[in-house]
């Protein structure tokens, strides 16, 4: 889209205008998706998007311009505006662009973009044919499959010249169960950086049936109770608790401006001693992985917390300048329409020693959050909320009746301190994370954990299943 000569000219103009770092980001995205509703193909889409972003930095002053119009006149106008807006900083030498180096964290045998949309449909029909006939209680169903190939190139005045090329596939299956006026949905959405072989090997029939069962179970469930109680959170997507309650507050986007409850806490106890956690972008084929970040730095496997002690923050270039530190290779953005910021990749609580069954057996009364929905956090205060998609009461050390409609709320720092059991069954689960630089693929993860006390926002129900006690 943009020639190397043009890119070098932009970098030259930017540095001559007073920028101490000039960066050009070029992105090309190809995608293909198919979606079904109630057994019929209602969506089929394919296309490509491309664009570029030019970032100038002078100390902590940032100018970002972007466009998808590769007309040289548009580009030069935007560059000129960027150069006139940047604060005049220390003069720096421009390093010659290194030889282009290419990287990926994709692990692909069969390129999913080589597979026809009709084959996507054939695969999805395996799921939709089960959902449409499974049980009269399953009244609606959706499923979709989307592949995105993203190639980005990052060049800057420090000589960085990198290209990252990753292909992601995501499957989504949702079954909706109806009982009278009640509707409950159950959803699963695995994502991967592997090729179409992941889809071919995926036990879609078995997983679809589980999804239907869960929707039927939840539509028949009573409401969750209200108040503070112990909560056991299942492995996998349960890690959203750590993502929301702690992960966001360890990003330099908030730590760098002291807008985090974990500012200036390196080396201090911020979690219970049973908690260790990592942000590891270097797991080949994992949904949240990448090899080179959107600033051209190599990604990392970062130890965030070790036995409750805070070890590292996730830091991008701007954060590094604010914190007088170094970037950790965690700068990400949804697309060229965003300047990069510090973001999570595959973030998880490390495995502990207890078994899932022992943790349940050790809990006399509480809530078992078998599957979590999404949530959000205020990084300044640590206040978070997230939804329990599939919940059960724990009574006398046993999983009892299903309950629905529970939301867990609390403050990140307190919850981390209140984790008193960590299981040995670590699992990762795909998701999307929205923040300042848009929506990016991440995995969350954890083994089964128990929080000794957390506020459960449920509803006191007239038809609670007390008869099962």
């Amino acid at each position: 889209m943009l020639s190397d000569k043009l890119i070098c000219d932009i970098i030259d103009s930017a540095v001559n205008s007073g920028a101490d770092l000039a960066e050009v980001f070029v992105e090309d995205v190809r995608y293909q998706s198919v979606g079904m509703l109630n057994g019929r193909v209602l969506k089929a889409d394919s296309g490509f998007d491309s664009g570029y972003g030019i970032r100038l930095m002078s100390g902590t002053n940032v100018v970002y311009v972007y466009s998808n119009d590769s007309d040289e006149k548009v580009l030069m106008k935007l560059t000129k505006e960027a150069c006139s807006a940047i604060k005049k900083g220390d003069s720096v030498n421009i390093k010659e662009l290194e030889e282009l180096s290419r990287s990926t964290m994709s692990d692909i045998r069969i390129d999913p973009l080589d597979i026809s949309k009709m084959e996507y449909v054939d695969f999805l029909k395996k799921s939709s044919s089960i959902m449409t006939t499974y049980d009269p209680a399953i009244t609606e169903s959706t499923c979709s499959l989307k592949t995105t190939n993203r190639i980005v190139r990052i060049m800057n005045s420090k000589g960085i010249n990198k290209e990252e090329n990753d292909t992601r596939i995501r499957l989504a299956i949702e079954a909706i169960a109806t009982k009278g006026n009640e509707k409950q949905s159950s959803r699963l959405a695995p994502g991967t950086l592997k090729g179409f072989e992941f889809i071919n090997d995926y036990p879609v029939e078995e997983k679809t049936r589980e999804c239907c069962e869960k929707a039927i179970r939840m539509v028949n469930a009573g409401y969750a109770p209200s108040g503070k109680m112990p909560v056991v959170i299942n492995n996998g997507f349960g890690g959203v608790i750590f993502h929301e309650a702690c992960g966001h507050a360890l990003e330099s986007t908030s730590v760098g401006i002291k807008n985090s409850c974990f500012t200036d806490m390196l080396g201090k106890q911020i979690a219970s001693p049973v908690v260790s956690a990592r942000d590891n972008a270097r797991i080949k084929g994992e949904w949240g992985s990448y090899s080179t970040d959107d600033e051209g730095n190599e990604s990392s496997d970062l130890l965030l917390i070790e036995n409750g002690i805070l070890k590292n923050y996730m830091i991008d270039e701007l954060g590094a300048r604010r914190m007088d530190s170094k970037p950790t290779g965690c700068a990400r953005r949804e697309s060229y329409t965003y300047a990069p910021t510090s973001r999570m990749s595959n973030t998880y609580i490390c495995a502990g020693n207890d078994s899932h069954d022992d943790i349940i057996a050790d809990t006399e009364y509480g809530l078992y959050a078998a599957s979590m929905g999404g949530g959000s956090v205020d990084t300044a205060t640590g206040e978070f909320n997230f939804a329990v998609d599939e919940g059960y009461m724990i009574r006398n050390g046993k999983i009892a009746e299903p309950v629905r409609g529970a939301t867990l709320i609390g403050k990140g720092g307190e919850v981390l301190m209140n984790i008193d059991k960590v299981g040995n069954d670590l699992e990762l689960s795909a998701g999307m994370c929205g923040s300042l630089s848009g929506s990016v693929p991440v995995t969350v993860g954890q083994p089964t954990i128990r929080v000794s006390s957390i506020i459960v926002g449920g509803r006191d129900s007239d038809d609670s299943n007390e008869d099962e006690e």
Partner: protein
Amino acid sequence: MDLDFAESTLRKIVDRAIEYGFEEAQAAYSADASMAVEIMFGEVSSFENSVGRGISFKGKLYGQMGRSHTTEFTDEAIEFLISSAADNCKVLDDEDPDFIYCDPDNSELIYCPVNEAYEKNTYNRLVETGLSLEKNLLAYSDKIKAVDYLRISCSKGPDIMINSKGLRVFKDSDIISIIAGCRAEEGDIVKSGSEFWYGKDIDLFDEKAFIERLASQLLPKLEAKSISSGSYETIIENEAFISLFGSFVSNFSAYAMQKGLSLLKGRAGEKIASDCFSLTEIPMYEKAVNKVPFDAEGVLTYEKDIISEGIFKTALYNLKSAYKEGRKSTGNGFGGTALTNVVVKEGKRSVEEIAMDIGEGLIITDVSGLHAGLNPISGDFSLLSEGFLIKDGKKADPVEQITIAGNFYDMMLNVKEIANDTKALPGSNGEFFSPSIYIGKIDVSGED
């Protein structure tokens, strides 16, 4: 880009599509130019400027409506647009027909409300406004320790659409918005709060009122505490109510009803809310920043009751869902269906007067986690909330770390009174105007 060139490219695409074999075809060009500044520590921390454009195509082939999109304007890109839409038609298997439309009496739709005020949005003006706002926010109270986020942005851009049935649409729109997030501290207690303004003329931004609004919701939070779980008589403040209601708006779409995804299916003419609750869509509402004379399918919009004195009057239809029921589109076709500008009818009394009657209860000022803590189909919700207790009929202690939980449909039937303090929040195709709503009792979870 030259708009004449853009329009001639659209014509070329439509002509080429018909030649290719499409029965009907439509092409749309959308451009956007935006600028944003962010202020931090008394200086510009970030400046953004952008120019974007794209072409989308839809065409009917084999009875299916195929769609495609590109950002390129070359002949190769046009071929890609048409061939990939045709490929999509081969895969699609939709039993309900979709349409490309032109009303012969309204085949030329033009709406350009952008005025000269937009020219005031220069870099210097945005910076000056931002620096002043940051300075005065910090000066307002020594408890406000930082302005963590302050962004002023403006954007405008024309949209052109033409189709093989003879429709030609030209639309331009603009907006400027200001958002600020502050952190307040007292001892070990840290709280944050934010405020938002949008409009079409930066001269109309009232800094003092903005700061008052932000501070009046932020500073009381420093004293906030959780409360005991229980059932509380509750007023949901205007903005919180708009956020909550907005999360359930998809249930009013006829498409959702036809697909079994809305509990409002078949309930037109029935009572779905309390008698005191009326909701009217007024696309050209005088108080709205942007008016909406026609929808994205080229159908004229019009004023209509959605809920009138508690009775559900009409679902929202686009061309496709209207055809399925043998009726006309309601002018709500925006991709799927969406509301334009909507207004909840005001009551007569203030929140303070209603609180006097309640005596003991709760005012909810903010709800969080709307994307996660509610089931948009069943209407169940359980949301992290903040607000104030009502004690002896007066707004009293601030409240934090609670959830309110209930069911949207039950809540609407239980509404007791509508206040007279209307505010607006923007949605994707218009604004939602609502006063605060006294919803009766609701379950609250907090500290026991």
